[in-house]
């Protein structure tokens, strides 16, 4: 329990991930599903950023002539988070565009209704 409290960033990331995951599975509204996906993304960024931090060290912007690795925090998670943000922006935009097309066709963003309408059309 104490471990979870000290690692509170990671714990919060896991809880956020769970919230986003359940949102993705349980919501019927497609736009809300995309929002759940976004919450999951942020949880992953929080986790990565907290893994890169080291107490008492500087951000990886070098000061002075000689750089000592013991003075700076880990720069790699920052790069990974950047990649993640870009990909999640692209995926969100693409899925929202698909949802807009679905809305134009079926006049609803409810997943179950869309499935039912599609089935009805398939029977005819």
């Amino acid at each position: 329990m104490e471990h979870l409290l000290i690692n509170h960033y990671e714990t919060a990331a896991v809880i956020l991930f769970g919230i986003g995951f359940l949102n993705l599975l349980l919501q019927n509204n497609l736009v809300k599903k995309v929002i759940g996906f976004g919450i999951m993304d942020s949880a992953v960024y929080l986790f990565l950023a907290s893994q890169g931090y080291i107490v008492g060290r500087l951000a990886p912007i070098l000061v002075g002539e000689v750089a000592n690795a013991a003075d700076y925090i880990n720069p790699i998670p920052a790069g990974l988070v950047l990649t993640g943000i870009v990909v999640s922006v692209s995926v969100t935009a693409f899925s929202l565009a698909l949802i807009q097309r679905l809305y134009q066709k079926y006049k609803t963003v409810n997943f179950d209704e869309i499935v039912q309408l599609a089935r009805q059309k398939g029977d005819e």
Partner: protein
Amino acid sequence: MSKMAKIKKEKQTAWQRFCAWVNGDTADRPLMPADPPAPRKTKTDKNKKQKTVSSRKEGIELNRFGSIYRICAVLIGVAVVTVLMVTVLQLPLFGSPDNPAVNEVVERYVEKGLEETGAVNMVAGMILDYRAFDTFGESSVLFLAVTCVTMLLMRDKNNTSKDEDLLTAREHVIEGYEEDIILTKIARLLIPCALVYGIYVVLNGHISPGGGFSGGTIMGSALILFAVSFGMIRMSRFFTYATFKKVTSCALLVYAASKAYSFFTGANHLESHIPLGTPGAILSSGLILILDICVGIVVACTMYGFYALFTKGEL
């Protein structure tokens, strides 16, 4: 006769079918009807009645499936969270220097980074020099996303109804003579500041926090503010779909060409003749500045492109 028709349909090239699918014309595809769904509460003839009965049965089935699905989803979610929590218990303590993630790679990046890449900002040096190929992939992903959204949402004669045409015509008329005074005054103040700040963040990417992605987003927000406050017509005077295509592809090509050069020379142990400059100056750190500018341009155009496509369906 029907066989002939079938053969004809099969003879359509894959490209034609793909075009038809993108345009929403799916006459031969029962799953995606081309016409809008009929109003749901009409029961006139016998056929329809049977259909409603069957669909009601289907609905009950769906409901039953739905409740099982919900329970399963909650169970899966709880299981995932529990497993992850147990994993968090095994993780090294927050902020400890002997975290196994801090290994020889980090040491190498921090200690040799300045003399090898010339960038003071180690993150910029990492993503635009050591891992530049990855960043090129990111920019391509953004470009690909805009292309897909354009394919799906761009308004043309195939996916616009008459009502929507009337609506856009009316919007154009309103844009023509009405100007929101508060919005335009504030926008005149803010847009230059935002643009200059975005350019500053891009150009200082290798010296201070920032870089192509963050600066590009700031510039993109300035473009969006311009489009919001002065309308699409004025926007199209200097930014159209053609300029968007040209600028974005040129930026990506410059990125690819300059990085290909440095990869080629590096792999063959040749002298690359790219001066690294004095660390801390604007004109330093070799290719990183050029790559940052390219990424910034791509990101700014992409952000504005998403806005324009989602609001008006045109660029």
